[in-house]
């Protein structure tokens, strides 16, 4: 239970339109990720679903019921915030149980629900501590636990991993994916990190300037981007855009992913000069400069060595090119 429907949803602050008409359905049990650059309106959209921002026009519906004018607490949602937002004066146990206590649930039932959530997140040993006595990762686990305890129809995550360090981020990401499998709940997750989006999502919603650019499964977006924005945003390192005319192709720009380029020491389709090298062990990123196309990134697997300034050439597979028109829309 937990299908979300957005119909022509807009939001304006005074004269500025932040969300410019979003239509979206998130199915029951789906893990949906909103992704986009900062200022694209993804957090605002999430806050509108949560009821923390008013909806200027359009409908927000959960399970077919219009919830535009419902208070956040009555929407049967739970939210996890970037800054954890734990209540500083309450213990972990009380933090997790507060929502149920407010809803008038019996004490025994609250204890059971918090106990179960704590076991899921291995928080049992921390239940009597206060947030100030926890590390960042522990705090975020408590915040997730607080959301689980409510058994909401909809989980909302607002960049929950942004404040964690890299190692902890990967660990918590896996934990969230595991929770989604175990709970089977509908989750909406906001992030600006496309790696998080790709690894967690059943479906990704790419937003830009308050509009939905494309909706699809991660591999769908990777293999079949609708425009240059999505093509550039999904995939890391970013897709290279070459000038179509200079290549003798009928397209304004031609996109090719760094992993689909090969590097030759002999002659190839494009000549270039190595300008920078990043060796990561498992992969090597080579940045090369071509006078017509500018800086091009090539992703090679394994360890490679090139000298800066070395003359090399590039080859690409014709079948792995993406063609875009002047407005950035995909041609074929």
């Amino acid at each position, binding site marked *: 239970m937990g299908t979300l429907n957005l119909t022509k949803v807009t939001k304006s602050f005074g004269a500025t339109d932040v969300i410019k008409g979003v239509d979206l359905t998130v199915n029951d049990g789906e893990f949906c990720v909103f992704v986009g650059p900062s200022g694209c309106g993804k957090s605002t959209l999430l*806050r509108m679903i*949560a*009821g*923390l921002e008013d909806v200027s026009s359009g409908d927000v519906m959960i399970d077919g019921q219009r919830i535009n004018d419902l*208070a*956040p*607490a009555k929407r049967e*949602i*739970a*939210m996890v*915030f*970037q*800054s*954890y*937002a*734990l*209540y*500083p*004066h309450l213990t972990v146990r009380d933090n997790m149980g*507060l*929502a149920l206590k*407010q*809803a008038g649930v019996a004490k025994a039932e609250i204890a059971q629900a918090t106990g179960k959530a704590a076991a899921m997140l291995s928080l049992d040993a921390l239940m009597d501590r206060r947030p100030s006595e926890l590390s960042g990762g522990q705090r975020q686990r408590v915040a997730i636990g*607080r959301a689980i305890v409510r058994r909401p129809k909809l989980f909302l995550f*607002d960049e929950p991993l942004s404040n964690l360090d890299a190692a902890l981020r990967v660990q918590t990401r896996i934990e969230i994916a595991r929770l989604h499998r175990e709970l089977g709940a509908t989750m909406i997750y906001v992030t600006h990190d496309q790696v998080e989006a790709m690894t967690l999502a059943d479906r990704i919603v790419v937003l830009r300037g308050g509009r939905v650019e494309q909706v699809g499964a991660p591999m769908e977006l990777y293999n079949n981007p609708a425009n240059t924005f999505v093509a550039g945003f999904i995939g890391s390192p970013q897709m290279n855009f070459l000038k179509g005319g200079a290549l003798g192709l009928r397209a304004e720009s031609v996109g090719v992913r760094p992993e689909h380029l090969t590097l030759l020491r002999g002659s190839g389709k494009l000549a270039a000069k190595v300008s920078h090298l990043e060796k990561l062990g498992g992969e090597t990123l080579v940045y090369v400069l071509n006078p017509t196309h500018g800086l091009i990134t090539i992703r090679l697997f394994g360890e490679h060595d090139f000298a800066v300034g070395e003359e090399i050439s590039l080859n690409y597979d014709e079948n792995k090119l993406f063609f875009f028109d002047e407005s950035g829309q995909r041609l074929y």
Partner: protein
Amino acid sequence: MSQARQSIARTFGAHAILITYTVIALFPVFVTVINSLKSRKAIFADPLALPGPATFDLVGYQTVLKQGDFFQYFLNSMTVTVASLFFVLMFGAMAAFALSEYRFRGNMLMGLYLALGIMIPIRLGTVAILQMMVASGLVNTLTALILVYTAQGLPLAVFILSEFMRNVSADLKNAGRIDGLNEYTIFFRLVLPLVRPAMATVAVFSLIPIWNDLWFPLILAPSEATKTITLGSQVFIGQFVTNWNAVLAALSLAIVPVLVLYLIFSRQLIRGITAGAVK
């Protein structure tokens, strides 16, 4: 601090300046207290001498306590100060919360209007205030003083507190809303504890002018039953003869309660003043 950034001359200079300032600030208090413990003759003979066996005299304190009503004056001052502080902090914090938390038409103007009071002294309105108090029958009541001091303290309270409340995490308040806390609970249970240092700062800044004020008690509540300690001490200052022992004793006693209140707030105060400066 590291050895590399410290030189003896500099440390000495800094302490010399601070000690000079402390001496200047404490000197009047010191003179008041030592002279309150001396006989009248000794006060005039050598005002800066410490009370010795020959000059020690508690006549000032005896006069003050014999006057009888002094306990009442203290009580009045205490009532007025504590009640005013309570209202300043409560209404100030509430207004600050509304200004910093909610988007509504005229938010900016309202904030500006409330801050304007910092620049315009409330004494300019004395005549109008007196007329109002006469019309509402509040002359010679402590209520009149509490109302005026609350109005006097609010602008600074709103100004300081709204700045602090803006820094309280929005996520925390939103988490409360999603968990079903109402706005009052969010304000009292989540936001107020987090701005406690700022509240202490406001309390101390409002406390001292209220306790020391002579103007409004003299105009609005000069009756025997409503006199405050500062007004009460004036009994001993005559046009021709002043009972210095009693005046100094009364003033020395008047320092005590305000010192106690300050000590209660001071631990929080230091945190409030340095918040933001050091993280």
